[in-house]
């Protein structure tokens, strides 16, 4: 597998250095422990948002650090949760005195490490709350598993909650909003190819020419079942059906449709998926009033897509439209 890397063990650090050089006006990169924070942080009197997770999902989360979104992001090794010392230092660095919200994707490692970090932060008198996102409908049985995974909905929660914090919402309000977004969004993904973690040097699983993996997460882990590849419209139907049934979405709902690329799928194919997903939503009387299309929560070079559908209320629409100035999302400013 050809990759643009120098040394597998230095990929995360060298990418962080590149980000710092590319976006000096937006972010600052702290090394040892590693975290990315907004260039003008800490912002006094503003609730701070901290997220983090394994690397390999770029632009999430570091690309979402900046005004109107995250205050800090902690990158772990590739597909590996960051550690509590990173989260603690990031939390202290961006605390504006009115509390910090940790947005945590529901993966065992992320949850355990953020729990330990929150315990440590509380010992230092920082008011920390946490919301665990779990929008992945591919996980059907939450009783006998680690529960639904946090996937595409996390990006939407970070944007909406970041805007709320920017406009002065307090910690309780931002926390509740994050829970509300998480409760209103459902996601589902497929992989057309596997991905290769640099230090592993070989693909995490293998798919035949005519096979896809249905119900994947974002770590190259195999999904729930493997099936024959189909046309984009059929695959989109298979993704949309469990999403809409789960919440359930109802006639008259307004929604944000997020068609995400897993890293190795071109934008032109994502629009083909968007076309069909929007038409399915319309057939069910759901108005797609906001959208996001692109590769925002990825799995290295994996080909594939995930669809997230968020039922909007007026408050979410207002915060979605609010200005955001980060390396990966930027509008209204």
């Amino acid at each position: 597998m050809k990759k643009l890397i120098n040394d597998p063990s230095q990929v995360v650090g060298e990418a962080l250095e590149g980000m710092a050089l590319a976006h000096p006006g937006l972010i600052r990169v702290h090394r040892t422990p590693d975290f990315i924070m907004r260039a003008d942080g800490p912002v006094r009197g503003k609730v701070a948002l901290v997220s983090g997770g394994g690397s390999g999902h770029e632009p999430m989360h570091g690309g979402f650090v900046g005004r109107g979104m995250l205050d800090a992001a902690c990158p772990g090794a590739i597909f590996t949760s960051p550690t509590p010392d990173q989260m603690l230092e990031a939390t202290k660095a961006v605390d504006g005195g009115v509390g910090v919200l940790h947005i945590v994707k529901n993966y065992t490692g992320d949850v355990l490490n953020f729990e330990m970090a929150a315990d440590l932060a509380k010992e230092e008198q920082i008011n920390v709350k946490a919301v665990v996102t779990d929008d992945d409908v591919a996980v059907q049985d939450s009783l006998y598993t680690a529960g639904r995974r946090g996937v595409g909905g996390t990006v939407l929660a970070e944007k909406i909650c970041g805007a709320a914090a920017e406009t002065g919402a307090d910690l309780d309000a931002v926390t509740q909003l994050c829970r509300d977004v998480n409760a209103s969004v459902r996601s589902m993904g497929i992989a057309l190819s596997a991905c290769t973690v640099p230090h592993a040097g070989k693909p995490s699983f293998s798919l035949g020419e005519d096979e896809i993996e249905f119900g994947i997460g974002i770590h190259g882990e195999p999904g729930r079942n493997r099936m024959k590849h189909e046309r984009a419209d059929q695959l989109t139907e298979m993704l949309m059906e469990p999403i809409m049934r789960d919440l359930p979405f109802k006639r008259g709902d307004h929604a944000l449709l997020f068609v995400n690329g897993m890293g190795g799928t071109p934008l032109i194919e994502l629009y083909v998926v968007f076309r069909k997903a929007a038409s399915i939503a319309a057939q069910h009387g759901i108005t797609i009033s906001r959208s996001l299309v692109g590769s925002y929560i990825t799995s290295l070079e994996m080909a594939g897509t995930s669809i997230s559908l968020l039922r909007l209320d007026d408050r979410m629409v207002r915060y979605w439209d609010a200005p955001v100035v980060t390396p990966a999302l930027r509008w209204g400013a």
Partner: protein
Amino acid sequence: MEALDVGILTEWLTRAAQRFGAEQAHLCDLDAAIGDGDHGANLARGFAAVATKMAGAETASGLFKMVGMTLIGTVGGASGPLYGTLFIEMGKEAANHATLDQSAWAQVLAAGLAGVMARGKARPGDKTMIDALAPAVKAMTGAADLSTALASAAAAARLGAAETIPLIAHKGRASYLGDRAVGHQDPGATSLAMLLAVLAELVG
């Protein structure tokens, strides 16, 4: 040998770091089958960091607390907090004993088990490191002497790890696979069994 002292424990963890370095690819392969393929790399990185910090540890308790904090800060994933908690809780219990004889070591290991179960909320049969650690703790009781107890614990852990093969996982990333996790040995149980095997080999 009647009891484990800080010198032996330091040697144990030094050799464990070597073992995890040598078994890195094997543990990553086990993890790739039902997880994301990084367990060996993460443990090798964590124990390599431990190995550089052990000089000067004066007590088993102090040593284990340092090991726990180092693993939490360097391993990442779920294994970091879980292995870290194991050693931190072992360190707390070790502080209650003047010498780590057979009975004391059984209590130290049991405290580690309790800590890991509280942190990860897994139970025996969930296809996790608990499936190696819980039988090891049980096997410590009733052995004739310390080296026999350590050998029994290592054997029980190895068997426990092998017995994860037919299980469906209920915790961690493997739990998302449902029936597809069946037929694969749990990497966390495997690494835990390796850790106890290194100690048994050293003392036996």
